[in-house]
């Protein structure tokens, strides 16, 4: 899986996929988010867990030929309570 960049409290994952049809776009977005979360947990568990994910930023880059790269930043910190 191509690795993206790193920053303070975030890790980026580059996820290649077929560009979804309009009808499938929402479902595809859900899959992409879950793939990014799975990558995050593989890298950062047990220090950080699913509850420590504070936000996800999803960008996409068309590759041609019906393919797209999703660049997904997963932000995290040690979450001990809900944010106001």
């Amino acid at each position: 899986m191509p690795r993206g960049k790193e920053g303070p409290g975030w890790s980026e994952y580059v996820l290649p996929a077929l560009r979804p049809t309009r009808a499938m776009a929402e479902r595809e977005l859900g899959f992409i988010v879950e793939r990014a979360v799975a990558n995050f947990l593989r890298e950062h568990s047990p220090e950080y867990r699913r509850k420590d994910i504070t936000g996800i930023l999803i960008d996409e880059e068309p590759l041609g030929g019906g393919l797209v790269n999703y660049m997904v930043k997963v932000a995290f910190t040690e979450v001990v309570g809900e944010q106001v």
Partner: protein
Amino acid sequence: MSEIREYHTMFPDISSSTLEVIRHTVTERGLWRVGKEEGFDLIRDMYEKISSVYGFPTPSLIEDTYEYYFISGERIGLPKVSLVSSLHEYRHHMQKKGRLRFEDVEVDARGWSISAFHYALPEDFDSAWSKGRIWYLPPYSGG
């Protein structure tokens, strides 16, 4: 590099109109007192008003498993009603429209959202910080 910073003072110049929209949403309309469905409607309304301040299209908001911003779709997902989280994701929308002060988009979004809360509602901000209810801030130091 640590993700813990003094985010609440990074944007001391947020427009007074934006701060007033935030104050109104919380104190007059009761963002923290209403149920989830009404809270989401209040956030949508807040997004519409802040967007009109900056002349941006309003992003859509849905309830979802994670907190996110989908850049090309201009869509925000939130799992629950949270002022700071909703402002954080809105800042990513502003970044798409060219508003970026700090090179790191996450640092920029944390700074803008936490500063907005701090300057709009300073007493509520202090109270929330002292209870550890704002992510990414250092331990409460008394304001």
